[in-house]
């Protein structure tokens, strides 16, 4: 028996490759991203240029920030489906309030619903222990209702997109989209927070083993409440960025981003059951989804076919990723 245990088993190349990928989960993701870009270049030679890169980044950034909300909540075993409504609310309020108000006041008014929804989510999930999926779906329903009522009160005053948001959302300086000015600090903050601060470790701890975390003195509800407020605030800021990009305030502005944001976090390797994952993978996940959308648009696939393929790819990537990770 000891013979078998001590004998170095011959390791095939395939296994070694798998193990290598399992140790560095980002590498298969980056390879996938590159493959997608190469396919794009083959299908439409010359498309991958500076302008395309800037454009892709512009559209990937709102998705990546919302996916950051999902990553953080998913680390604790939760999910935040209210991000779409929160982003839409703050964008819509900003666009309508800026007409008569000072920009600072308008900004604060736009962030108010984000904080409130985050607080309600946090209390529901942290104190009352409601399943996060239901809690956030419920608050997003309530938020949409409020938005519809609000819309009628401002229908006369009209809406406009502040120049600053326009510049931030659409502008490009020296080939770099201005949105990076917002995204880079946010991304660095999230990554540092998750890896270097106590709060980040608490998120992993709560998601990995909630009971153990509680018994070691973690105040669960405080962590969760802070987390959902943070997630909502980020979503609100994303809404402001997104309105500068889309330039048409509507009541379903950011709603189409919700499910892709979950998909981006999942593709990026964050476990939906909590305790495992990180933000770097999520950013690449968001990029993959954005490139994929471009690819499908170029293939002139009808909207329906695009969604079908999108679904299967999310599923396939997650399954493949799980296979690689499981071998660890």
């Amino acid at each position, binding site marked *: 028996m000891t013979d078998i245990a001590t004998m170095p088993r011959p390791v095939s190349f395939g296994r070694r490759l798998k193990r290598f990928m399992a140790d560095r989960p980002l590498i298969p993701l980056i390879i996938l991203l590159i493959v997608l870009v190469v396919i794009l270049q083959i299908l439409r030679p010359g498309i991958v240029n500076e302008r395309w890169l800037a454009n892709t980044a512009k559209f990937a950034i709102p998705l990546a920030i919302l996916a950051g909300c999902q990553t953080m909540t998913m680390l604790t075993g939760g*999910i935040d489906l209210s991000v779409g409504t929160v982003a839409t609310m703050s964008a819509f309020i900003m666009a309508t309030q800026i007409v008569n108000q000072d920009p600072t006041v308008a900004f604060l008014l736009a962030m108010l619903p984000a904080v409130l929804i985050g607080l*309600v989510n946090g209390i*529901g999930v942290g104190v*009352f*222990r*409601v*399943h996060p*999926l*239901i*809690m956030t*779906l*419920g*608050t997003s*329903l*309530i938020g*949409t*209702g*409020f938005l*519809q*009522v609000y819309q*009628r009160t401002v229908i006369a005053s009209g809406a406009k997109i502040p120049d600053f948001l326009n510049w931030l959302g659409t502008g490009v300086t020296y080939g770099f989209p201005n949105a990076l000015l917002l995204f880079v600090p946010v991304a660095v903050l999230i990554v540092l927070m998750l890896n270097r601060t106590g709060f980040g470790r608490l998120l992993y701890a709560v998601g990995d083993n*909630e*009971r153990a975390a509680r018994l070691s003195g973690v105040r669960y509800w405080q962590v969760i409440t802070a987390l959902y407020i943070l997630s909502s605030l980020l979503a609100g800021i994303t809404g402001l960025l997104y309105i500068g990009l889309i330039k048409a305030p509507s009541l379903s502005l950011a709603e189409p981003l919700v*499910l892709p944001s*979950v*998909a981006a976090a*999942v593709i990026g390797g964050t476990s*939906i*059951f909590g305790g495992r994952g990180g933000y770097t993978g999520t950013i690449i996940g968001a990029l993959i989804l954005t490139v994929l959308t471009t690819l499908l648009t170029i293939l002139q696939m*009808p*909207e*329906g*076919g*695009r*969604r*079908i*393929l*999108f*679904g*299967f790819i*999310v*599923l396939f990537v*997650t*399954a493949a990723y*799980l296979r690689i990770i499981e071998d660890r």
Partner: protein
Amino acid sequence: MSRFIRNQGWVAGLFALLIFLFVITKLIQPGYGSGDFGSLARAVLPYAFAVAAQTVVVIAGGIDLSVAAMMALTSVTAASMMNGATEEYALFVVPFVLAMGLVLGALNGVLIVVTRVPDIVVTLAMLFVLQGAALLVLGAPGGAAAEWLKASVIGTVPVPGLPDWADAWVPKALVLLVVCLCVVWIPLRRSRLGLSIYAIGSNELAAFRSGVPVARTRIIAYALSGLFAALGGLSLTISTGIGAPIPGPYLLASVAAVVLGGVALGGGKGGLLGPIIAVFVLRLVRTDLTLQAIDPNVTAIIEGAIMVAVVMFGAFITMRSRPAGATP
């Protein structure tokens, strides 16, 4: 035994709440009569089937995010097949659509079992796929429904031996609902398969070790969910006369009613009766608000707030009744 009392107590409490709501409705609107009850039953029909679809899967320890999309797909399929076709052709359409739901639901289950990806991600991916398929079948709301099908939910069922005034309180839609649910649910509940579904939801490992075919049971649970969702889609087409490719608000409603109906989201507990009563409660609240001439958007807010509050309350009760220190 005490658990049995608690579960039945929950359903009884819900039923009392429903009666209470009927009394309130009668007080608000003294003219509330059998005709209004009939339209309530018609409005409940698609919701009830969505809830039934969700219930089966939740009892088996999973969740199905694709319920609403499945309903949209089956609804547009039925509507476009019946468009311009003869009345008799609908006799073929109904079983075809039901079989489609069954197969697509089973596909959900197979994907979960084979890929080992968390159910929440698989059904999310299927949500994209089914939504896309619905858009491919019918790009915009349209299609038609056979007259005899439309007639099958309008009016009342003449029950021999009942006086006319009592007969008026037996709307066809309610009878259809009860018959469809009972035909599937009662044999299931009494069979070995039903027990297996509860077993894998309650404790998958224990079920596996006692010889329950976990994979097969899970696939069947999702197939049944697909069947119920197809019934929901059909009832949508029947009651509106057209098919709409954009899914309605059935996902949140189904999850909320499942929780309100006393089915634990962890699985293994509860029945079908509770969630169905819960749907009636939620719809009746909406009716009451409409009768009070409240703005429909405000109604949406109140409805959402009630759903969230109820879910919070339910979670609070479960938390209190659990022995201290136990993990959820």
